[in-house]
């Protein structure tokens, strides 16, 4: 049976994730409510504005149900803002910004500067034979990696792809460069 994957669709780059997951053979649901979240086996938390998503998680009644599912080891892929929301500690966030605290990382928001500093570059990813083309949009930077967190890719000295238990987090946007390998691997790990 096809895995049923949710894409958190409160705000941000959810459409591009949904398209690539469908092309990889998943059944995809857009998630905006707790009822919708209860129906999926795994979740993608897209890029966008982490402050906006944090508020909408709360106002849409998704914060507690999501924390419960994550506690119960639901597989999750968080990119950019998704990584920020999943990290234990956020630097340069809003004081009232929610942190799901699943991955023991310290992440700095907008670490590279404004959009003028956004960039694309090839990176080497653990387990992939050829470089992965990564797009960084006003990207966060990982400043501390906790015990039990595996670094799967770096750009320069900075970790940009990490895994911890059921969570994979990326500082870049694998959904934007047309390379399906990260999504395919996320889906393969579900079965």
């Amino acid at each position, binding site marked *: 049976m096809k895995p049923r994957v949710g894409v958190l*669709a*409160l*705000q*941000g*780059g*959810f*459409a*591009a994730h949904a398209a690539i997951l469908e092309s990889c053979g998943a059944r995809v649901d857009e998630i*905006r*409510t707790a009822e919708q979240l209860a129906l999926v086996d795994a979740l993608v938390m897209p*890029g*966008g*504005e982490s*402050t*906006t998503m944090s*508020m*909408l998680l709360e*106002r*849409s009644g998704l914060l507690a149900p999501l924390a419960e599912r994550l506690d119960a080891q639901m597989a999750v892929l968080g990119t*950019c*803002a998704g990584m920020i929301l999943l990290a234990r500690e956020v630097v*340069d*966030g*809003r004081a009232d910004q929610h942190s799901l605290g699943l991955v023991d990382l310290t992440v700095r*928001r*907008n670490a590279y*500067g*404004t*959009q*003028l*500093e*956004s*960039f*694309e*570059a*090839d*990176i*080497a*990813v*653990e387990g*992939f*034979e*050829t*470089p*992965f083309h990564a*797009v*960084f*949009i*006003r990207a966060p930077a990982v400043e501390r990696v906790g015990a039990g967190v595996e670094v799967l890719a*770096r*750009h*320069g000295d900075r970790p940009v792809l990490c895994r911890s238990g059921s969570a994979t987090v990326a500082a870049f*946007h694998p959904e*934007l*460069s047309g390379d399906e390998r990260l999504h395919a691997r996320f889906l393969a790990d579900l079965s």
Partner: protein
Amino acid sequence: MSATASSDPATGTTLVKRGLAEMLKGGVIMDVVTAEQARIAEDAGAVSVMALERVPSDIRAHGGVSRMSDPEMVQRVQAAVSIPVMAKARIGHFAEAQILQALGIDYVDESEVLTPADEVHHIDKWAFTVPFVCGATNLGEALRRIGEGACMIRSKGEAGTGNIVEAVRHLRSIVGDMRRIAAAGDEAELFQWAKQLQAPLPLVQEVANTGWLPVPLFCAGGIATPADASLVMQLGAEAAFVGSGIFKSSDPPKMAAAIVEAVTHYRDPEILAKISAGLGEAMAGLETADLAVKLADRGW
């Protein structure tokens, strides 16, 4: 690890520029004229703010030449928030755009809301590292702007009126023509579409192949309530710009938060009913037939 080391990073590419627009989808970009308003917008969940001297309804009321904002005001807004900051340059005024890029603005809006600086040419947007958003009333105008390098299109609507009718007209025109082009029978029909729309043929062919613009399509001009936001999202807009609609309402923080939620839950009337309740007065609207100046007619 068998893959080779990181390549040199490339900034200002089309992918990077369109990528930020992709991240603003499902969000609300709010016009602000002070740092205080910018903070209210961010507190309410805006994904970005547009820093400008006067909101469109005041530009309409006061008249005169409307220009790029004072850099000092732009910098105060940048310092006040952590979300992306946009600012407007006049149509064709590439020097204003150069200054906004030097200020580290995240997106430049080459906007009909300001007084045009050039009655023939738009800015060559490929020449910039900063991405541009441009307005459009129809698909031909949208594709011409994309041909010039725009990385986000917003339907123009009629700014400063609080009247959604023009936004609906423009969105229906753009989305409807994309649907008709995607259903075209052969290449000859695409040649005719390019001629009729006065649009670059390769972009018409791209619309035929994908059924959509090569960049995100947002909506602006006239959104004043959560229901307006839901309407334009259901008609195909992927995010909303709200100008006068927030800070000309009776309770801006409440209206701002409600419109943010409405853009997320645009297909859920039960949630929208809750969001829309008890918001106070929306901005006073204008009948478009009574307007002395139609801002949407600016742009070529």
